[in-house]
């Protein structure tokens, strides 16, 4: 389900314009992003936990040129689904 399809379905079900729905959905995403980046953790009920993990920089070796270079550190967002979400995903309709 793409972003357009999601907005269209919500707009039809709620009877709200697509533009308003899109603004609300984007705002929800921004709130989640802000929460993850600021606190480093976002826990959504019945969905799971988002964690901001850090991968330290390390040394890499270019086997062709035999050069050692630095792989920069980075932060990445990991997701741990909750038990309810896993059970819901595997629930037979």
């Amino acid at each position: 389900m793409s972003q357009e399809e999601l907005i269209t379905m919500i707009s039809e079900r709620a009877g709200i314009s697509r533009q308003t729905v899109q603004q609300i959905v984007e705002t929800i995403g921004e709130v989640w992003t802000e929460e993850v980046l600021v606190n480093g953790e976002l826990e959504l009920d019945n969905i799971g936990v988002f964690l901001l993990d850090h991968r330290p920089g390390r040394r890499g070796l270019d086997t062709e040129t035999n050069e050692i270079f630095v792989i920069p550190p980075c932060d990445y967002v990991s997701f741990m689904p909750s038990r309810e979400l896993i059970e819901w995903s595997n629930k037979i309709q």
Partner: protein
Amino acid sequence: MNRADILRRCVERGVAAETDIGAVSRLFYVHLLSALQRGQNVEVPRFGTFGTRIAGVKKIRKIPYFEAAPELTEKANQRFRDLKYLLIGTYQQIPAFGETEFAGKVPPYDPLVEVMGKDKILDTRKEVTPQEYELLASETERSQPSQEDMAMPRLNLKDEGIDTESVVQESGKEPGAPPTLREVGGGGGGLSPFVIALLAIIVLGAGVFALNYFKVIHLWGKKAATVTEAIPDVGVPEVETPAPAGSTDQGGEPSTATTPDQGMTPAPAVAEPAPAAAEPAPAVTTPTPATSTPVTPTPAASLTPSGTGEFTIQVSSWASRAKAEQEVSRLASSGFSAFVEDGVVSGETWHRVRVGRYSTQREALEAVSKLEPVTESDLWVARVGR
């Protein structure tokens, strides 16, 4: 964070009415869960994509996953964007003995940091500001750094959990001291004791081989062969004393000729002719019959073998037929049914003096005990015709 918190923060932004935000938020959750249940992906703008993947072997399950959007990843790594990292060198700079030597060290452990000195090489786990990068890059471009270059700004490695003092103590050098030749892996510094010992062993072995080859010393080779050839020559003068003139006996068979018989008795074959020749019988030699065959027992006068057994007792072996018959006559005078049996060994005919025929080996061994007082030679049990 529950839905109420999200709703409150969205309302604070003034995007839409609170009722609309609440309705959209509730429907958003519903569509997200229903799409995951159907196995579809749900894309949240500027945040990421939810989806499910199949996992498990015995019990297949759908596990939800989340893939962060590029915007989220970009924001998360924004603090690293302006930082630069230094190319720390090539692989040849690692010591020649390899990185396996560093196995077991407590991380974080960087061999280059220890080898080149912590003031010289940037720790790979450390971010560098653009100013530090420019300084370090200009530092590494110089082929031969001077003492002024050694006074680089120290990195705060303790923040990364690296104990600089312990590493310096392990390397046994001052923090500012330049690396030695061994530390940078640039040279060997002479032969190792193991190589020297190996070369000494090789030279010593070659010397011993050369001395043995030129027969200065006899450790192996022809020394054993000369002994075996000398044994038959010893018995010749003892045998020739009582023998008639013109006899050409050899005094005994070579050791190779008696190898089949050695399995019967432990006595060596080369020892048999000496005692036999020590007590020569009176010269009652009889001429060799012309009809004698080399394999079948040859009856000599009244000394035909008695019985039809397979085993017999070998007393001695002679190259001269006359000597063998003389021995047969001596044994016959003592009451034993001796006979001469010819055998070909290495192209030469040997005349074996044997006594009796026995059906079993036990009987032959019992007869040996009776024959031993008469002859002083070593007796052993042999098979007829062998």
